[in-house]
């Protein structure tokens, strides 16, 4: 590939951060899952009881098991089933981190339209991650 077709600095930066986070997220996903199944840590809902609930709707599952919603899982990190969520959380947070990393590039280049797009995108993802908008039951 010639230098003429080299992707922009912010694109390469985004790619590098995304690669690191997605690899870390996948590793954490597998490790957390084995911690959950191995019984190394206590669980809120033991794995062998999950089949009693997996046919229910999500809100029924939460009502019956008392599993945390939103960010209520944070104080419960000493539980195996919560640890198994960490990889999922990291994978879901990766994009947000990437946007935060490339925002200064757009601001420095005075690329106002894209700086605004990235800021709004960060706000949208923060809103989704906040747990304030959940809809449903």
């Amino acid at each position: 590939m010639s230098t003429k077709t080299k992707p922009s600095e912010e694109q390469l930066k985004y790619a590098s951060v995304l690669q690191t986070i997605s690899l870390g997220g996948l590793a954490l996903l597998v490790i957390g899952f084995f911690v959950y199944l191995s019984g190394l840590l206590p669980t809120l809902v033991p794995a062998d009881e999950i089949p009693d609930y997996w046919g229910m709707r999500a809100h029924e599952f939460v009502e019956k098991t008392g599993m945390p919603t939103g960010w209520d899982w944070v104080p419960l990190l000493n539980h195996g089933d919560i640890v198994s969520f960490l990889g999922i959380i990291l994978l879901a947070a990766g994009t947000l981190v990437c946007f935060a990393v490339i925002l200064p590039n757009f601001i420095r280049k005075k690329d106002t339209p894209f700086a605004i797009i990235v800021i709004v995108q960060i706000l949208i993802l923060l809103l989704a991650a906040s747990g304030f908008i959940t809809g449903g039951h």
Partner: protein
Amino acid sequence: MSRTLRRFLFLFAVVAITIGFYSIAFGEEQIVEVAQKGSTIVWWMWPVILFIFTFFLGILAVVAGVGGGVLFVPIVSSFFPFNLDFVRGAGLLVALTGALSAGPGLLKRGLADLRLALPMALIASTCSIFGAMVGLALPTNVVQTALGATIIMIVIIMATAKRSDFPEVKEADTLSSVLRITGIYYEESAGKQINWQIHRTPLGLALFIVIGFMAGMFGLGAGWANVPVLNLLLGAPLKISVATSVFLLSITDTAAAWVYINKGAVLPLITVPSVAGMMLGTRIGVRILARAKPKAVKWMVVTILFLAGFRALLKGLGIWG
């Protein structure tokens, strides 16, 4: 030892380790009745079957050139005992992890384009949040019926949509000019650099409202819709469209995934085997791709998808539950 034999031995080892782990961890558990299916099966076999199933789904998805997410939700919701909420949550994570894994390489090679993706992603991700909220609020049978109808529509799009390697864009529209959505990439098959630009950007953005909403509501990847819009409507070259579509998915599905996570609709016992199986299958699929007959496999997958969509439709309508 032949490569095929090595692959089968590798698969056997993975399955044996998985089954072994589950049986050690839960070996003393009793056989449970799975009420939904009326069959008797040890509970931990379901995640194992799911892992094996998604492994083969990953191979098929790559060889057929179809996104894994779009196959996962209709098939798993039709034939596994999990509620559609958890299947959609897992489906989003399956599509998301696939996109996150492929995204960095595509961005670094200049095939996925950040400037092309970001405006579309902003619209699609916002709407995917609303889609997820609506999907979790509606009764399951309504979502299942709509899913079935959507899958049949996707099958029609897959079967009929044409693709253009280098669509002709005589003049970039005003919006894409203001946003400077244009690029150059090196086309290896032609041995030259290709300049590209897009047109009809406002209409494309409007379509991403629908695409994002459906991605969030059904937990599907949206490559089936992203690629035709980017390629045929906006006029981006096919390679740029496919790669940017994958990258777009990583943003759209992230927004919707948060809604499912926060609602408790992501079960690691369903999600992790699905993600692991799909990623492993995708890697094997890439190796098989060189020797496979993609066209034949694509029609096979389209047929399976149609049957799964039809089954979802009948299940939603209460005709075949």
